[in-house]
């Protein structure tokens, strides 16, 4: 993670600036990426409010609250990591990265448990052809939405974990005096973004039945 000045930049602040701007642009496109999912959600909800009333209660909001807490905490430790990266406190940086990693992993573990649970109860998006009612908006529709939305989010968390692991590895090998912040800052921005997406998903899905 030693942050040498690279072609084409003449100096470090310039390069750091560029990395931040690039990350912001990337997040801008992520907003639209998830935007499609939220429009999909809205469209379904407007046309079939009954689906949400019927099936949203099957989602475990207590577990989701725990996941929310894990992510919020991880955002906090991530913010610390960015700070320590800039102050070149290597041990603290490593610890806070590790904490973020652990909290993110905990989130994914809970998500995985939840998925397994839904699959075990037959709450899957796959249309059951044996169902005598035939296809029509129903349980598979709602869980299709649920798995698509949370699935893409989980993939983003996973990507964040990989980036965190890479940061941690690089920080571990870099002498403290060479530590510089911009990669940590970039990953930090990304991590906060993923966190915010969850803050929208949580009420949209888990609390849907309660909020009407």
């Amino acid at each position, binding site marked *: 993670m030693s942050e040498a000045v*690279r*072609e*084409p*930049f003449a100096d470090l602040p*310039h390069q750091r*600036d*560029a990395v931040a*701007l*690039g990350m912001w*642009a*990337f997040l*801008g*496109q*992520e907003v*639209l*990426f*998830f*935007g*499609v*999912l939220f*429009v*999909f959600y809205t*469209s*379904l909800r407007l*046309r*079939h409010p009954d*689906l949400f009333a019927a099936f949203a209660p099957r989602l475990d909001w207590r577990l989701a609250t725990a996941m929310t807490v894990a992510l919020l905490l991880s955002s906090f430790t991530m913010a610390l990591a960015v700070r320590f990266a800039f102050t070149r406190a290597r041990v603290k940086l490593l610890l806070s990265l590790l904490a973020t990693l652990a909290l993110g992993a905990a989130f994914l573990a809970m998500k995985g448990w939840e998925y397994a649970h839904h699959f075990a109860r037959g709450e899957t*998006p*796959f*249309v059951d052809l044996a169902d005598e009612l035939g*296809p*029509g*908006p*129903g349980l*598979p*529709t709602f869980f*299709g939405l649920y*798995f*698509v939305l949370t699935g*893409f989010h989980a993939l983003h968390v996973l990507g964040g974990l990989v980036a965190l692991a890479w940061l941690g590895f690089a920080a571990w090998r870099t002498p403290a005096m060479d530590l510089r912040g911009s990669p940590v800052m970039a990953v930090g921005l990304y991590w906060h973004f993923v966190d915010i997406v969850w803050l929208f998903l949580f009420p949209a899905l888990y609390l849907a039945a309660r909020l009407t």
Partner: protein
Amino acid sequence: MKSWLTTTDHKRIALLYLGTMTLFFTLGGLLATVIRVELATAASDLVTAETYNRLFTLHGVIMVFFFLIPSIPTFLGNYLLPLMLGAPDLAFPRLNLASWYVFVAGGLLTLTAMIAGGLDTGWTFYTPYSTTFSDSHVVLAVLGVFLAGLSSVFTGINFIVTTHRLRAPGLTWMRLPLFVWSLYATSLILVLATPVLAMTLLLVAIERGLQIGIFDPEVGGSPLLFQHFFWFYSHPAVYIMILPGMGVISELIPCFSRNRPFGYEFVAASSLAIAVFGFLVWGHHMFVAGQSYFASVVFSFLSFAVAVPSGVKVFSWLGTMHRGSVWLTTPMIYALGFVALFTIGGGTGLALAMLAVDVHLHDTYFVVAHFHTIMVGGMLMAYLGGLHFWWPKISGRLYSERWGRIAAYILLIGFLLTFLPQFLLGTQGLPRRTASYPPEYQFLQGLSSAGATILAVGYVLPGIYLLASLVRGRPAGDNPWGATGLEWQTTSPPPPHNFAAPPVVTDDPYDYPRAPQPTAIGAGHV
């Protein structure tokens, strides 16, 4: 070889793109050739209807996603942006190389789909046909396009950051070349529209691959939602295609009129206006799909609004020639061809944006003619114009001016003959995407096929004489056209880090009255 595949030099990456895209264009053109041969007769006799559907689908997909959208940005943009800004490279050189690899991977996936049996959904991938009914290789193709989109996003981010952070000292926003402005506007669309397509295509792949109902009306989905998503990207995408072309024209016309651009601020601002308004008009592709009456009226209105900044461009180009010294070189012929055909193509776009008119013309050959006039007649002309203009800079050689002019005129004639008849086919009511058609359309279809033959010759010619110039051409010198702009102040071709010493800008752009006189072609005379 290895040094090329691992290069991070933006100029070399640009050339990698040029090579890749020439291949795709040739492939797309060959598909078009088969289409035109098939359509020369009314019956579907050369190929089956099934094959025909695969032909135009792949033609559309390849031409749009693997040729026209990346064409000018990734080739001329990649090559010229750092030069025009006085920078040694793009902001993220390794990301730039990665974009190319992702692009190639996407292309290979799509080609795999093609070889494995093709794709027959039309380039629009409409559901539920694509998700449930088609039995072609939708998932592969969709992932291929997804990768091409990802590559676009990377390029867009790179361009935006480069323009913001790597301008030479003294190069203020109001001194940027107009080409840079148009690339900037294009990049904004690339970054903000492409993810919508990307996610939509992923949803199609998920629905098809995992049998999850997302757009399927059987389980509560909405096919119209797909159309909204698709056009939310694909209308802005047509401005991704045209804006860089407009930028090229805005460089060519001042240079070959030896004049300052008329209304620099207006041309620059209109690029941004097109980019912004372009996001608000997607519904004009759905006038008869059953969106609400109110939505249709609003989308129609906004479609007209977006045409105002396009008109500003045309007006400004004409204004630049006014009080100029017009020099009809090969690039200038292309530029003028662009202006004429863009006006016709854009005008017919307005006809389509009129609600009552579109009811009749939607999904007929009129639409086909509309977009080929802008994309082939307009954008491809701009691409070729730019290629000829900067060829001496890129290769260090001058091409044969005589053959250049001949090819340009052949292209114009071939183009008109191919696509003007299609306007009439459309008004007469022939739907597009039909392998066979009633005999009364035979004459015009035949005319169009004949024109396509001439068009093909026009495209092969530049390939020949440009390649020939590499061995036989005269050395070009640093600034053969006597053009302004930082890219002309370095050698041809430029050295690895572009400038011997970082340039400093002290003047306004396009100071043609005080620019050096051209050295190419008879030193300053006609």
